């Protein structure tokens, strides 16, 4: 009897030990690996590998036709010390990110918050109005009509009519207007997935939380927002931040379509337009990869930093 009991416990031990080993775990979950394989094979080829290649190429001289040649930090040194246009585009991109990033994030939150006060059809309609620009594809070219440089442009027409200006302004050909105008258009376009996440997140906040807060002495909607709503939807806030930040660093298409590439005196140049210039026009892939790598670090670094800040909301 006693020996049999000891044997059972020994068996139990070996099973427990075996379950602990990595090989056993992998073998036991082999079906899981089969299921994730198709996605992650593609993910490896089209996301992970490109990022790694980009980093490797950034240390080489590479024109696609010949083998890449290792040049060390040369691309980065040239980029940061000699390339004036890169500095302009980096400045523009940072300006874009610093202005449109936080503002669009706040607007997403603000509008979602107000929309949350409505119900039914009106709510669906308002959601559509604010979200539609971000999904209407290249339809932002309609801004070209608003910003046309002669008196046929809507904005010029309006300003001339009420005599704010005496002659038509070449909006997209005047250096000082290009960046501000692009920022406005970018804001118009920027209420995207993050905005939807906020509206959805606000819906999930439990009503009993609000009632409890009212009893605890929360006096107005602003306090309610800060002490109840925001902490309750922190996960959505973090998701929304990722969406808005990534978007605000990647501005390029609107600049190319509205201001042209290259734009007047590079006033609308961004890191991405600079990247496209070297990548698809000049075929200096090593140099373009260095630009891409810096952009990658900027985007991921900012995202990580903001994630860390957002964890403190409501504390």
């Amino acid at each position, binding site marked *: 009897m006693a020996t049999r009991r000891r044997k059972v416990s020994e068996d139990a031990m070996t099973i427990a030990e075996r379950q602990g080993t*990595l090989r056993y775990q*992998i073998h*036991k*979950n082999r*079906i*899981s690996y089969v*299921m*994730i394989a198709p*996605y992650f094979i*593609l*993910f490896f*080829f*089209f*996301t992970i590998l*490109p*990022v790694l*290649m*980009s980093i490797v*190429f950034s240390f080489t001289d590479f024109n696609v036709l010949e083998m890449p040649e290792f040049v060390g930090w040369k691309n980065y040194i040239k980029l940061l010390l000699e390339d004036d246009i890169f500095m302009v585009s980096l400045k523009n991109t940072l300006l874009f990110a610093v202005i449109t990033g936080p503002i669009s994030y706040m607007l997403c939150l*603000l*509008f979602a918050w107000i929309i949350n*006060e409505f119900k039914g059809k009106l709510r*669906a309609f*308002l*959601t*559509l109005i*604010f*979200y*539609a*620009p971000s*999904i*209407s594809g290249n339809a932002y070219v*309609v*801004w070209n009509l608003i910003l046309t440089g002669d*008196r046929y442009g*809507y904005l010029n*027409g309006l300003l*001339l009519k009420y005599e704010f200006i005496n002659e038509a302004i070449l909006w997209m050909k005047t250096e000082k207007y290009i960046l501000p105008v692009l920022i406005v258009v970018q804001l118009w376009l920027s209420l995207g997935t993050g905005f*939807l*996440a906020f509206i*959805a997140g606000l819906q999930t906040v439990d*009503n009993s939380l*609000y009632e409890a807060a*009212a009893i605890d002495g929360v006096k*107005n*909607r*602003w*306090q309610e927002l800060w002490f109840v709503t925001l902490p309750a*939807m922190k*996960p959505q806030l*973090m*998701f929304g931040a*990722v969406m808005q930040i990534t978007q605000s*660093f*990647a501005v*390029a298409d609107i600049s190319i379509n509205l201001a042209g590439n290259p734009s007047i005196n590079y006033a609308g140049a961004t890191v991405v337009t600079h990247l496209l210039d070297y*990548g698809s026009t000049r075929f200096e892939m090593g140099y373009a990869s260095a630009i*891409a790598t810096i952009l*990658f670090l900027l*985007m991921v670094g900012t995202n990580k930093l903001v994630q860390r800040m957002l964890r403190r909301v409501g504390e």
Partner: protein
Amino acid sequence: MRKKVIVDYSDRKWVPFWRRAKQTKLNRSKAGNGLLFGLMFICGIFMALPLVMIVNNALKPLDELFQYPPKILVRNPTMENFTDLFVLMSDSWVPFSRYIINTIIITIGGMIGHVLVASLAAYPLAKHRFPGRNILFNMVVLSMMFSWTVTQIPQYLIISWLNINNNYLALILPAWSFGMGLYLMKQFMEQLPDSLMESAKIDGAGEFRVFWTIIMPNVKPAWLTLAIFQFQYMWGNTGGTFLRDEELKPLQFALQQIVQGGAVRAGAGAAVTFVIAAVPITFFLIAQSNIMETMTTSGMKE
């Protein structure tokens, strides 16, 4: 704190809209409502105006398009621009139906493949514990933190090496592995109760069977959302550097050629801009409630 009197309207059929909010939301001042709804109204007009212009321009006859001073609203609406567009389409070098077929292949291929591949990967990530699970998911989250522009040069090279350049697959395959689809799907699946799968497993169903007969029907809002987002992305794609042959280019490419035609084609161009914007907006409208349901689970846990 001032005591709030909550009027119970539950026995009435119709409740005035300014009373409705008060049933659930406390602490709302009239001044605050006025301020916020006013702000909302002004910004709403700013957001909607370009969209209104797109619709109106598409309906304007040529003389109104070049009218001075420019008017936003159309006076004599006409379908001329759309008929012009059809004429342009019918005498294009490549038959226009070809562009439409290309777009259908690329969009459907990208949509179905992405939904399948991403859901299949999301299920184990959400419901199974296995080594590497967290690392893999964190990589996907990280991939949402940079835009595809960063990787486009190496991606182009990889597509050349895989020999799928100038092929629909060059657009379709990368689209299957988008990070956001997997992310949304995994977050949505996580909220499904485990008991749902356990009863099926006791009945002897394998993992693939559980996935197909239990999980997928229960995450319908999520895969509809994935399909719509994917559609929006694929719809905007012009084929860029990947598709060289005119016979392979999608509709978007042909449409943008018309827009770039300038003043001569201003009418048809206005119609094109309308079509480009209207299609994805319509799809969003159809699926709005499903998309909102999916987004409730989109939050990032620490």
